[in-house]
Structures are given as C-alpha cells and as structure tokens.
C-alpha cells in the first residue's frame, strides 16, 4: 500500500540544523527499512500561486498565502503493508520534532490511489 504524508505547519518557520539532522536520519532509517520511496520539501508560498475554479470562473492568485494559518511544507511517500505502518512512521516524524519545533505541526496521512497494487 502506498501512502502520502502531507506535512502542514506555519509558514516561514525554519527548522534548526539539529532538527534537519534528526529528520534526515529518520528519512534514511525509513529508506533503509524499505518503507520510504520518495520525499520532498516545498518552497515558500511567495514563490507559488493558487488557481481556483468557482462558479465556472478560474482565478489565479500569486503567493504568498498570507491568509493561510497552515501551509503544506513537504511530503513523503511510503510503501508499507498497512495504514498503521504509515502512522507509525508519521509518529516517529512528529516525535523527532519534540523540543526542536515550537509550532504546531499536522500531518495528513492519505492512501495514494495510484498504488501499483490497486486498480488491478
């Protein structure tokens, strides 16, 4: 089963070198256990844009998304045997932030529908 975890937090908060190192280690651990197959961080919303369809009309707004309390900061893709396994990796990810991250952090864990074993 393939899961994407989407990390949301306050825009502009920067991880310390200690946190970056810890998360890097965790990522390497997940990769060495064959669980993580992809990951990435997203740039600031000031470099992005938002496109919206409403009432048949498309509007595009350049970043930053100043009104947003939380923005997506990064993602990881796991290939695991169960949702619980994806949750376990996410718990470890959050755990790594304790004491090193002052803001709230939310991770959404979603099964990917392009899972190679689905749709057969």
């Amino acid at each position, binding site marked *: 089963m393939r899961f994407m975890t989407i990390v949301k937090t306050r825009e502009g908060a920067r991880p310390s070198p200690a946190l970056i190192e810890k998360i890097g280690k965790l990522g390497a651990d997940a*990769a*060495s*256990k*064959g*669980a993580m*197959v*992809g990951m990435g961080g997203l740039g600031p919303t000031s470099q992005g844009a938002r496109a919206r369809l409403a009432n048949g009309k498309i509007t595009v707004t350049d970043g930053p998304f100043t009104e947003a309390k939380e923005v997506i900061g990064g993602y990881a*893709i796991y*290939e*695991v*045997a*169960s949702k*619980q*396994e994806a*949750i*376990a*990796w996410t*718990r*470890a990810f959050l*755990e790594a932030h304790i004491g090193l991250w002052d803001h709230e952090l939310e991770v959404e864990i979603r099964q990917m529908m*392009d899972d*190679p*074993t*689905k*749709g*057969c």
Partner: protein
Amino acid sequence: MTRQKAADAIDAVWRIESARLIAGLARIVGEIGVAEDLAQDALVAALEQWPESGVPDNPGAWLMATAKHRAIDQLRRGKMQDRKHEHLGRELDERQVSPEPELAAAIDDHVGDDLLSLILTACHPVLTTDARVALTLRLLGGLTTDEIARAFLVPKATIQQRIVRAKRTLAAARVPFEVPRGAELAQRLESVLEVVYLIFNEGYSATAGDEWVRPALCEDALRLGRILAELAPAEAEVHGLVALMEIQASRLRARVGPGGEPILLLDQDRGRWDHLLIGRGLAALARAEALGGAYGPYTLQAAIAACHARARTAEETDWTRIVALYDGLAQLMPSPVVELNRAVALGMAFGPAAGLEVVDSLTTDPALAGYHLLPSVRGDLLAKLGRFDEARAEFARAARLTQNVRERDLLHKKGEAL
C-alpha cells in the same frame, strides 16, 4: 486505547522493527532460533502492556530493551535447563560480558552488519530453497507463518514445519552469525538475491492459483531488495536486482485487466505504468552500472526491462538493443528460457521468421518440455507468419500446460481469435 487498535499498531511496529530486533539479538545469542524466541517474548509483552499504556514513543527501542531484559533475566536466574539457554549463557560467558551495559552496547553496534548476517543466514546454502524463502519472509519481512502460508497457497502447518526444520538445520550446521568479506560475500549474496527474486516472481506471475498476480508478495520482495541495497551498497548486482524489480513492479497495475485477466507487455496502457517506480528503477540501474555491474545477470535483465520502460509506445521499443542485451545474458547464463526470450526479441527486431528459427531449435530441449511459454511464443510467431492452423495448435498446447487459470483463459482466447 482499544485492544484492537493496540494490536494493529503493534502489528505495524513488528513489521518495521522485528528484523533489526532479531538480528541484534542473534549476534548476542549466536542462534537465530533463540533470537526469534526472545523477540517474540518482547512482542507478547507489548501485546499485554500497550493496550493499557499506549504505544511508547519509541516502540522499536522499547521492544529491544524488553528483549534485552529477557535475555539478561534468563541469564541471572540461572535457569539454563534447556539447550537454548545454555547456549545463551555460554555465548555471554565467552564474551565475558557483564550483562547490562555491555550487552546493551553490543546490541546497538553494527546494526547493518547484523541485518546482513541475518539475511545471509536465512538464505544459507545449507537450507533448501523453500526453507530459505519461508525463513526470509518470516525473519526479514516480518510476516507471520499464516501470511506466508496464504501467500504461497500451502497449509500453515507446512510453513511452520519448514521454519522449524530450517532453524534446526542452521543450529546443527553451526552456521556462524557473521558477514563474510570480499568474494565470499558476493557468492553468499547470490543466494539472497535468488531468494528475493523468487519471492518477487511468485507474486508477479503466480505459478498456481486463480489469480495471475499476488502484488503483496511483490511488495515484500521489493522491500527486501531495498533493504539489501542499503546493507550492501557496493554490490552492483544488488542494485541490478532492485532495478529489475522496481521496473517490473511499475507495470503491475497495467498488466491485469478489469476481469483479472493478464495483459501482455506490448498491449499494456503505458499511461498506467507507475512512474515513481520506473524512476527508482532507472536510478538503481544507473547505480549498478556505475559500480561496474553492466554485465551481471540481474543488471542485464534490468537493462532489458529499462528498454521497455523508456519506450513511450510499444512501437518505440528499441528491440535491437534488447536483442544485444539478451545475447549478453545468453552468454553469461545460457539457459533455454533466456534463449526463448531472445527469440521473442529477435522476432520483433528482425521479423517473425528470425524468431521462429531460434524457437524451433528449442522444441526438443527437455528442459522446456512442460514449459507453457514455449508453445505460446511459437504460436505468436506462427500467427504472425500467417500459419494459423499451427498457431492454434500451439496455443491449445500452451493452455494445457499452464497451471494458472487466468493465463489459460488468455491462451484459449488467443487461439480462438485466429
């Protein structure tokens, strides 16, 4: 936390942590059977305690600490009646370990080496292939006996017996728990790669049963391959095998139709191929080639798979390069199955007559006597040459030979369509 929720969480933790747990313990006690027992004890403790206490913040460390305590307790209480515990005591005595801190330190060191030792032991040449497969899925894959039995469509008792016997064989042969170096490592790894690819193939084209693919087995094999690539990063063929499996797995979704029927490579909707896996596969192939593995058997097969992965349409396939790669493979490991595949590529590159010439030379090969793909390939080539009656007879023969229900249906359809 409900009991069920805790049990699910523990299941997940077990999948993630059990291999390292068993590996670390095995180095201390010297025997994987004893190590697995200790790890299982820790699992039982988790099942008792976690529903009340919740899952600890670092569940892997919790399990390891618990297992270590069990090992030390057994030692302290001096209850060494049975053979395993005697063994445990002796190992610790020999190392002159004063239990707690040093034992703990000993387990924490060399995690990578321990895991590699574990997989090398599980795939040791003294074991039968069946035993290697069962033991690898159990100790490295974290699968239960039940799950292994279901995956291979055999009774649970059969797998149980296989595992018990395998552990006994390893203990009797006094197989040392260690990582050999240099040429010996490469040689022992061959056996591991063989086992991993066997597991993958059993999932990729099930030899028996109602389903043509069992993707869970492919996933297990891929996971083992990815772990192995981290454990032995300098071994080109490990990356070659990973590349091969990633690229083949990228087609899993596209190679089964809505009714569960197989869809052959050239007929697949390439838009349904999994590009995450293709990207990973091509990267692993590049790594294997950079390590000088271009002519290893798995790397060669991965290079062939990559030719298909790179072609946006079936027509764009570089068949001439595939023929050249099969030529290399045929020299490296001459086998009638490789020859048969080479014939398919020849037929695509230089016309069906060229392919048929090679296939005809194989029809008397006793190794292929019961192999359904021989008449199946021959049928395809004959059909392309307009020899429909002969082609029909070949498809019928192939249908009789295959054990797989889905494949049989496909072959019948092919014959009827002519």
